[in-house]
């Protein structure tokens, strides 16, 4: 059983004996890279800000003031972090199973869309809690189906999920765009009518200080989901088997694990996690599905998972970090272009990717497996034509 201690031990580099103090060293190893990455990002940011003729201190001050400096800013950060937690968990669960799910965009959109459809289909008199629950299940199902398709293709035909998930993004987004614009949009807009029931309470309704921010109780769902994913991965037999498949598929097969089955279940589950993120916008914020609401959040989930080192707790922290940067971009717009913050995000990702060997390893191995599967495909085609 992988207890938390074993997790720390597992994170130790090969050959290291975990004697007394090794736990502290491993903790350092877990915390150091993100901190270093942030410092590097700040230094690069300094240079950028100076090239715009501004004072770095003033810009960072503005960034902090606009995010953690007032209740509205905090609310916005929490709102953005909620969606990113879901998409980050989705990517992390995939990586734990050795799969790189980059279909978060489509899965998130499909989840939001299905939640909105269910909310629209229900009479207004439906009890809020029942409606919200049904919509959430719908969101998970929507994302899950979009994830299950590449999962099945991988398990059945060996089609590489990096290719199929990214391609499915276009299919799903185009399909949803067509449905919304051709069938059910509100005139002069790109969104559906408001749902009749299933709205999630906003933070501002409980604590008026958050007035105007989009933060809502979905963030509790996100935290609970992070806990559930952690439990699933590290406490259950399914999680044991999923991680075994991710680390060493051959050993998993030897251990009587149905590798194909684990893969497609993992991608379906990953999709469901991303899809559930859709309720943050649809149930918690606007109460309708709008084309493009998910743009960027699916892909940013990859960065969140990498910086969070695929650990549910780390992902929550990383989601807050990226949400801060993204909200802060709006705040500093007066002094420097907000794209500067995009550059900072990229620098954080690059720094983490080089600072954390484990991250580097996971990127490398998935690149390698894409290359391998492409080679197999062409090899097989060549063999067949002979």
């Amino acid at each position: 059983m992988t207890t938390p201690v074993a997790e720390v031990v597992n994170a130790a580099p090969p050959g290291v004996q975990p004697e007394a103090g090794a736990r502290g060293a491993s903790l350092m190893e877990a915390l150091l890279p993100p901190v270093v990455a942030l410092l590097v990002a700040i230094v690069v940011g300094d240079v950028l800000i100076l090239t715009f003729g501004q004072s770095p201190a003033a810009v960072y001050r503005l960034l902090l003031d606009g995010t953690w400096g007032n209740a509205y800013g905090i609310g916005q950060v929490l709102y953005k972090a909620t969606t990113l937690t879901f998409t980050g968990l989705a990517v992390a669960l995939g990586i734990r199973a050795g799969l790189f799910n980059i279909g978060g965009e489509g899965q998130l959109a499909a989840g939001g869309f299905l939640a909105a459809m269910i909310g629209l289909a229900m009479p207004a008199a439906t009890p809020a809690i029942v409606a919200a629950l049904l919509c959430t299940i719908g969101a998970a199902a929507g994302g899950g189906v979009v994830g299950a398709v590449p999962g099945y293709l991988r398990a059945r035909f060996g089609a590489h999920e990096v290719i199929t998930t990214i391609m499915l993004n276009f299919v799903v987004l185009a399909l949803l765009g067509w449905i919304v614009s051709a069938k059910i949009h509100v005139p002069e807009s790109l969104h559906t009518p408001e749902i009749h029931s299933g709205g999630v309470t906003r933070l501002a309704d409980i604590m008026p200080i958050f007035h105007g921010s989009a933060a809502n109780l979905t963030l509790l769902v996100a935290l609970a989901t992070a806990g559930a994913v952690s439990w699933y991965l590290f406490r259950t037999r399914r999680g044991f088997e999923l991680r075994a498949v991710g680390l060493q598929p051959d050993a998993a097969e030897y251990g009587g694990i149905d590798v194909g089955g684990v893969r497609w279940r993992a991608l379906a589950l990953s999709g469901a996690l991303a899809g559930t993120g859709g309720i943050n916008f649809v149930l918690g914020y606007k109460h309708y599905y709008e084309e493009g609401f998910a743009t960027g959040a699916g892909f940013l989930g990859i960065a969140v998972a990498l910086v969070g080192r695929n650990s549910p707790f780390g992902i929550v922290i990383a989601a807050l970090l990226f949400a801060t940067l993204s909200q802060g971009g709006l705040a500093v717009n007066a002094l420097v272009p907000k794209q500067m913050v995009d550059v900072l995000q990229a620098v954080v990702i690059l720094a983490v990717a080089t600072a954390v060997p484990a991250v580097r390893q996971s990127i490398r191995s998935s690149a390698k497996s894409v290359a391998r599967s492409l080679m197999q495909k062409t090899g097989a085609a060549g063999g067949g034509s002979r």
Partner: protein
Amino acid sequence: MKAPPLPNAAPGSVAIRLQGIVKTFGETVANRGAALEVKRGEIHALVGENGAGKSTLMRILSGMYAPDAGTVEVASGDGRLHDVTGWNTAAAIDAGVGMVHQHFMLVPPLTVAENVVLGREPKRGLQVDRRAAEKSVADLSARSGLVVSPSAKVADLSVGEAQRVEILKALYRGAKILILDEPTAVLSPPEVRQLWDVLRTLRADGGTIVLITHKLDEVMDVSDAITVMRGGETVARLETRSTTPREIARAMVGRDVALALDVERSDRARSLPDRAPLLELRNVCVDSPRRARVVDDVSLSVAPGEIVGIAGVEGNGQTELVEVIAGLTTLSGGEIRIAGHDAARLTVRERGDAGLSHVPEDRHRRGLVLDYSVADNLILGQQHHFTRGATLEAARIVDHARQRIAEFDIRPANPLLAARALSGGNQQKVVIAREMGGGRDFNVLLAAQPTRGVDVGAIEFIHDRLRRARDEGKAVLLVSADLAEVLALSDRIAVMYGGKLVVVLPRCEASIETLGRYMTGATGAPARVA
């Protein structure tokens, strides 16, 4: 075969001298003050258990690692020693130090000649001069006795031939000092003899050879001098002529060990119990994904209380045979019965529950999830027996691990340590403990290369466990490329060649010579050897 006297009666000058080498990786100390001195024109065996630091020492010599402390000196053409501590691989190659790795570093789609000249191609204008390359490789091949066709594709070569290409590659780069890392692991006995001839030819030419190995018979066969390492230190330097395998083994392990060959051979005129076989194979066939028949019509049965050994050069279908019995490969034809039940359609897990235990040949790929803890690895394949509801029973798993660790003396005795951090021998003990330890209810054991890459002490232990399983009435199918092991353990011995079982002999009719001949496919040649 006795080692011939040294070619140069005069004491050779020193070709390599490593002194006080220290190398650490994190908290692991691989070398702690290791030393090595090799004379020019010598075949020098570097022996030691797994994790003794042999490979690290050789990687320091060949420039792959820089030592933390100590000096590395290598003789130049005029015989003078130069301090080259901390050089890189390119400098080492320039100075004539070549290493042949255990895992070949060849490009399969290219030809032999292309592989050999890779990186140092003869050019004609901007193009590679293939003809010149093939000619120089052919010359080199003729001179060194490394017979291989320069225009053949490496992908089509046998393992033995591929190894010759690796050696040619080193020679082409002007290697005067050749380091070979466990070169015989993949060779049949005749190929081993050819390799020894090549090494002797090179020695006669003034070449210096360092041979990393843990097979003592090879050391006695071919080496002139021996350096023994243990725990990162050099513990002995011996002259082959004046030592014995027992002395070497004692130096390696630090205590007396029973060598496989010491076991009395025909002391067990056991009358095997006349009971129904626990494992039955009838006309088993396996096709590879490319539709080649890799296991061809194999019929064999293993009775309770019997060890049946399968000998053969690797790559003759043994791997596939084991995997098809374990349920990891699709059966293309025939029948597999475990304890009387038709197992052909059972999953891996169902076969395990039916009483099949499997020690896989590749513990790094199959047998262990290296990043899982020892405790987690000890339940791999049994995880459904350690589950309550949806969750794993953490406490029971750690308990189980503590028992197995005590039962099999797995070191370090820490159930939460990642399997990756263990030495090869202890990793294999984890696999053995899981498949054969207390609490595992099995009646058929598939043991594939159970002692590969395992140190002498652990080999003794593993052999003992296999015998004990037999004495408890289990059916054991042993697959090993190590003939001495097959001979030491088996009651009956089958030889596999080209996917077929070419012969099944009772132990008393088998010898290294007979088996060696069958292993090379000389089917009809010696019908029976008296």
